[in-house]
């Protein structure tokens, strides 16, 4: 039995349902029933109840695409900020195909503190910091552009069903946009004005993530500005 309607606002401790359901994101179960663990919108799909949270930190998943910032250069690895309580570790083996000789080669020549990278999460479990890799198409150091931060819980809304929302933004603003699952989004445009517009659109999507008709409003907004 459901105690809430789809897309209803819920807060931690709200009773959502009792009976034969499965607990999805931000929902917990005890003997009495299913409850929300975060503030957000409740959603049902088949018999999985989840709450699309307004805020939350990023927990890495294997194969996630992330945008990160190099914090430290170690002896054989870099430590990377990926907007998570867990710092990303990028070993030399995950950065370069060539063998690395610590007598001749300098890690800093490949990546230095403050560099932005597009990476993939190779491994992560709760006992180890996530391992990253920048080997692969589209991965590696970023030379220019602007990084926007968004709460990671709204990334799926930014991407849209089958990528529809992000494709709309990319096409209409003419910008290359790489959406990190970790809430860091890289925007590269030919002109600064295009980037500024794309950033405003991303902020608008974040602010109105829970509303309907957003795709149309985004289209109209860009239309007025371009």
């Amino acid at each position, binding site marked *: 039995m459901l105690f809430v309607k789809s897309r209803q606002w819920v807060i931690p401790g709200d009773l959502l349902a009792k009976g034969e359901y499965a607990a999805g994101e931000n929902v917990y179960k005890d003997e009495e029933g299913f409850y929300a663990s975060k503030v957000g919108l409740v959603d049902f799909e088949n018999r999985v109840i989840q709450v699309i949270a307004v805020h939350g930190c990023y927990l890495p998943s294997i194969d996630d695409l992330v945008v990160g*910032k190099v*914090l430290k250069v170690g002896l054989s690895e870099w430590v990377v900020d990926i907007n998570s309580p867990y710092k990303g570790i990028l070993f030399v083996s995950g950065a370069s195909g060539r063998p690395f000789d610590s007598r001749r080669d300098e890690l800093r020549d490949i990546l230095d503190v*403050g560099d932005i990278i597009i990476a993939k999460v190779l491994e992560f479990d709760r006992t180890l910091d996530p391992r990253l890799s920048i080997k692969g198409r589209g991965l590696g150091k*970023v030379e*220019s552009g*602007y*990084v926007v931060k968004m709460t990671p819980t709204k990334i799926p809304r930014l991407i849209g069903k089958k990528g529809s929302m992000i494709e709309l933004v990319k096409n209409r603003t003419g910008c290359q946009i790489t959406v990190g699952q970790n809430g860091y989004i890289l925007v590269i445009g030919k002109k*600064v004005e295009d980037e500024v517009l794309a950033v405003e659109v991303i902020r608008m999507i974040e602010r109105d993530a829970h509303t309907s008709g957003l795709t149309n409003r985004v289209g109209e907004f860009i239309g007025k500005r371009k």
Partner: protein
Amino acid sequence: MLGDSSEAISNIERKRILELLSKGKRLDGRGVKDYREIRVERGVVEKAAGSALVSIGGTKVIVGVKVEVGEPYPDRPESGALTVNAELTPLASPSFEPGPPDEYSVELARVVDRGLRESKVIDLEKLCLIPGKKVLVVFVDIYVLDQCGNLFDASLLASVSALMNSRVAQYVVGKGGEVEAKSKYVPLPVRSYPVSVTMARIGGDFVVDPSLDEEMVADARITVTTDKDGNVCALQKGGVGVFSVDDVLEAIDVAIEKSEELRRDFLGV
């Protein structure tokens, strides 16, 4: 504060800020001499003698003034005392840790203190009750609640606003030399209105009211405090970069111009 940021700014953002500045633009669209939106709210803490909450952009600082009877400094027996303290509360930034004041909070307190003291914001002689024995001590306590850049200007503006807003009991000295507080309240004798203008040097350019990002990219900053007559009453240079003589003179001109606007718009003088 230059001590902020557990992490450095990214290289592409640094590049972006410098590129924009070379065209006279800033990340948030401001002109190089523009302040962010400023709000001043006075009297937010009724239990304090005076108080003010100032926000400049996202930066939020609250100042409370307390006045107590105390002893004068030995070298100034006929003068009241003014003491300024600053707390960089851990609410304000991921890199502020709870604990005793560090060098950044001490610098903040001392820069505000100099601005207040050298401009003689309060006629301290008027705070003397019994020379050599009892004077009024004015405590200005600065609490930084949200660090989004330029704590100096927000803190001094809040301090002066709080002092202007302060009411203290009228004290009389009895026949037996005891000091008594009457139930009548009077304003603190505020008589000057110091305002500081902080500029950061990024590449070869100055920007007024640096945001957090700009503070992280800046190689140096200068805070110029002036009074209502355009006199310079305090200066503070920070950061490891250097200024030319012309840079300094130009900064002072900009400070006098901007502080007049701030004084008029937010202190009402």
